[in-house]
């Protein structure tokens, strides 16, 4: 028969085990969360590969020179920046395809009916891009392509 003191001691020991387990769990999960947070922030540095370095040197534009949070000017491209660059490149490619399709349609229409001299409505999306836009995605983050609006028709 256990005494009341023994019961309270055993309960406290169980509590200690639970607290220690929770502490370990919180520390590990917290480390994971912070790792995720710092991976998505723009601070830090990246390992610039030789290919990227040569591309960067060719365009004479550092990949991303940003003053880091601790005043560190580092060439870094965080995961978020990479994702944004890829998404922007995809959007530009989609817009380019859309514009090309519209221009082809307009050209065929104008050839069929020469009297209708309609001009294509230029949308808000860029119509034509310079070849620099179709360069590799590694330099897409820093490249600012010249956008030339094309008015279709004859």
């Amino acid at each position: 028969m256990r005494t009341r003191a023994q019961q309270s001691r055993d309960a406290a020991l169980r509590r200690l085990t639970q607290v220690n387990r929770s502490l370990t769990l919180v520390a590990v999960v917290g480390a994971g969360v912070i790792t995720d947070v710092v991976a998505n922030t723009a601070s830090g540095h990246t390992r610039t590969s030789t290919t990227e370095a040569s591309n960067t040197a060719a365009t004479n534009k550092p990949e991303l020179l940003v003053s880091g949070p601790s005043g560190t000017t580092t060439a870094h491209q965080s995961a978020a920046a990479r994702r944004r660059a890829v998404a922007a490149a995809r959007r530009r490619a989609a817009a380019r395809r859309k514009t090309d399709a519209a221009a082809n349609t307009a050209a065929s229409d104008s050839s069929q009916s020469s009297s209708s001299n309609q001009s294509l409505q230029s949308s808000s999306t860029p119509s034509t891009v310079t070849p620099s836009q179709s360069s590799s995605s590694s330099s897409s983050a820093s490249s600012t392509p010249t956008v030339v609006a094309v008015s279709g028709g004859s």
Partner: protein
Amino acid sequence: MPIGAIGSSSTAFWYLTRASGVVSLLLLTLVVALGVADVARVSSPYWPRFLTDGVHRRASMLALVFLAIHIVTSVLDTYAPISLLDAFIPFHSAYRPLWLGLGAAAFDLLLAVLVTSLLRSRIGARNWRLIHWMAYACWPLAVIHGLGTGSDVRRGWMLALDVICVAVVLGAVWARVRMAEYPTTAARATAAGLSAAFVLGLAIWLPGGPLAAGWAGRAGTPVKLISSLHSGSPARTGSR
């Protein structure tokens, strides 16, 4: 970025270094606060004193584990030229020697506290207590190390965590002085003076230091590393 993808990233060590450093600081803060609560004999029927002691020990072990991760990933991450020796010998590193050295000193102190705690029965309670007091010096060194070398110092969440850590430890120290059985005026004056000096020092140093532009160069980052990054070419101090 999914956690699973981090493992395949070349910057995984860098992310882990930063995260483990932050978690270590938080755990060290918890260790100091629990140690103070333990000495102050804080207890209740629901929370006996040995629970505080047990959590204090577990948090210390966890802090050491995360410190080990912090050091190993710092060494493996070849962006900054940090060797394993730099983690043990203060002010030896070529990369931000002062601020990294403070971290190394804090780590050495923590190791001393750990070893003497394991050998407590052999060295005696009095000697153990004298060395254990160094934990109070270890924590501010770790805080300043994080502020001096941390990449996330300017982030709002990191600043908030730093403020919370400082507030928790200062509150614990002040409670310790107040709850002491025979608090002498000298002890109170010392605690108040050191606390005020630490906070005032941070308030003066931070705006012109880590929070100001160009801190990397002034902190002692090798010129070669900075110039190679400015030119856009890969920094080959190591492979980055």
